[in-house]
């Protein structure tokens, strides 16, 4: 009897649960999840394919390797800002001032570095510190005075825009030196081909290695391995092939920008923090049910503070990346659609506006969608008026999809 029992895995003893085994099981599980409203990355991937097809048919240059490299350069700055937005959205909060924050950071960079002639690292540190400070202010306003982040960040948007104009006041814009590392990093530097291929293989290899390790440990303690080896091999294989093809295609042109590499590294780090640390668990708990999180001993105030500080600091970093991309700190930096693009990217990527759901990857995928639309419309010589309208429409669609998926999840008992 005890022999029989030990043969059934711990998590397989309840006969009511259907267990999806192997590749067919994995596919069946995926279809089930999507039908119940757990869309994950599906809408964004469908959207990307659609966008690429439309723009490519209108202007084949869209998919040229050099244009895609440009797209990646552009994506890094807004992507960083969007990554911070993901953090506050997971808590069910919002930061509307990330655009102004990025503009202010670029102004600080220009003033300290170019106007005052102080070393670049100092300028970068001051700008990042300004970001962290603003996040601290928002979190304090929320924690101490219960001021909704929607309002406090709206106030911050105006205040920081004013400070940015004040800093740049006399000249209106500051040009950053073209020969400097900052500007070359934002405009020219790409990875060596061999390194990019190495990076393309790494995720698949890592997935395989971690997956095998996990299977080994689960088997050791008598837990089942859903999917098993076949699914793991298929997933890592498909991922590696896709990445290799993409990298090879991009290396046919200018190559892969280091700046984009930095952004992806930040996404990977954020993904680890959100999914594999106690802090990340607490973030989702606070976003899902604040009272429950508080009662289980989580310091809700500190979690909020960390999220807002991360968000503003990443916005400052994004602003400096944008400045190095444009080789200037101007009064226009961070204004216009930067704010909404960053928020839209996070939502399009699958992070819920209602809190408790999201992932670092949504910043990466979402920003590629946003930049692809913006880049494609620019290639078609459409005016920015039309570009704004179309981006607005895409954001509306993304929020509708999010809202519908949420209702469907609720009716299927998936929160």
């Amino acid at each position, binding site marked *: 009897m005890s022999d029989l029992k030990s043969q059934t895995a*711990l998590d397989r003893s*309840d006969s009511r649960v259907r267990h999806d085994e192997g590749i067919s099981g994995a596919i069946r599980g995926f279809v089930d999840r999507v039908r119940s409203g757990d869309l994950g990355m599906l809408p964004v991937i469908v959207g990307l394919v659609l966008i690429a097809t439309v723009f490519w048919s209108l202007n084949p240059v869209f998919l040229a390797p050099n244009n895609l490299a440009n797209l990646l350069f552009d994506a890094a700055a807004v992507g960083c800002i969007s990554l911070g937005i993901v953090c506050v959205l997971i808590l069910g909060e919002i930061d509307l001032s990330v655009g102004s924050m990025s503009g202010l950071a670029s102004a600080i960079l220009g003033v300290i570095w170019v106007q005052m002639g102080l070393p670049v690292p100092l300028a970068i540190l001051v700008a990042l510190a300004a970001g962290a400070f603003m996040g601290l202010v928002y979190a304090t306003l929320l924690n101490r005075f219960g001021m909704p982040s929607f309002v406090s960040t709206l106030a911050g948007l105006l205040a920081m825009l004013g400070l940015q104009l004040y800093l740049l006041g006399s000249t209106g814009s500051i040009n950053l030196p073209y020969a400097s590392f900052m500007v070359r990093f934002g405009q020219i530097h790409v990875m060596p081909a061999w390194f990019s291929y190495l990076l393309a293989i790494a995720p698949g290899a890592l997935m395989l290695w971690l997956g095998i390790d996990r299977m080994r440990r689960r088997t050791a303690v008598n*837990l089942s391995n859903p999917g098993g080896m076949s699914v793991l091999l298929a997933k890592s294989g498909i991922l590696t092939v896709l990445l290799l093809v993409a990298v090879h295609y991009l290396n046919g042109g200018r190559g892969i920008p280091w700046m984009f590499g930095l952004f992806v590294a930040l996404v990977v780090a954020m993904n680890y923090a959100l999914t594999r640390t*106690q802090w990340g668990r607490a973030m989702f708990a606070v976003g899902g049910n604040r009272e429950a999180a508080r*009662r289980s*001993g989580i310091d809700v105030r500190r979690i909020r503070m960390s999220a807002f500080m991360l968000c503003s600091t990443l916005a400052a970093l994004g602003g400096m990346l944008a400045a190095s991309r444009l080789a200037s700190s101007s009064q226009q930096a961070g204004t216009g659609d930067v704010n909404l693009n960053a928020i839209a990217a996070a939502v399009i990527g699958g992070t819920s506006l209602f809190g408790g759901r999201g992932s670092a990857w949504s910043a990466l995928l979402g920003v590629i969608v946003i930049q692809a639309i913006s880049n494609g419309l620019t290639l078609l010589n459409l005016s920015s008026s039309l570009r704004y309208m179309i981006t607005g429409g895409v954001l509306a669609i993304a929020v509708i999809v999010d809202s519908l998926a949420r209702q469907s999840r609720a009716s299927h008992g998936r929160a």
Partner: protein
Amino acid sequence: MDDGHSASQPILRLRGVSKQFGAVKALEDIELDIHPGEVVALVGDNGAGKSTLVKVLAGVHQPTGGTIEFMGQPVAMDSPGKAIELGIATVFQDLALCENLDVVANLFLGQELSPWALDEVQMEVQAWTLLRELSARIPSVREPIASLSGGQRQTVAIARSLLTDPRIIMLDEPTAALGVAQTAEVLNLIERVRDRGLGVILISHNMEDVRAVADRIVVLRLGRNNGVFTAADSNSDLIAAITGATENAVSRRQARKLEDVGEPT
């Protein structure tokens, strides 16, 4: 077991605890002792102050007066984290689970294994082991709480409170949403917890459940102590103390007599 109550020092001792919300006195002069290996039922009508008392003991509300002693030491429980740290675990009536997280994440919330690289495998094994000890019927620990039934959520909430290895566990209406078999399971579970030497505080409206497991039944009425009973006492006495229908010298005397027997000093 029997002489354990009187000989041992109480884990928790409340003296003159009161709590005021504005003009409303929710609790006044509450006295309560919890010994190891004892189930104390807290009963009372709506608005008797049961939930307020639970929240005071869980660190959610701070008392406006009186002292709380834990293991003989006076303590100030100024946050839920502090209460958990001391060893007072609470299962609230609204369960306080995160619907967007799975069972494992909810069980270990705030006390995850290896905070910088979550040990999901170990947490899952411990979750299964614990749920099996409680003979709980949870189909999968990797499903979000949103997909579980009311009884299953109750089980998860109780299991979670046991993970911290507490000295006292408080259950606020644990059987209110449960079916017949599940209620019996929860009552078994309460007895198993008591036999481990924990103090159990059980808040319930269901007199049948209370009588089945409680060693002492403490009645609250309008925020005050209104007598201590045992399962042997007649139902009408108990109901009278709860509703205050026959609040007279006889019932007060009887209650006092029982209190003296239950807690010799």
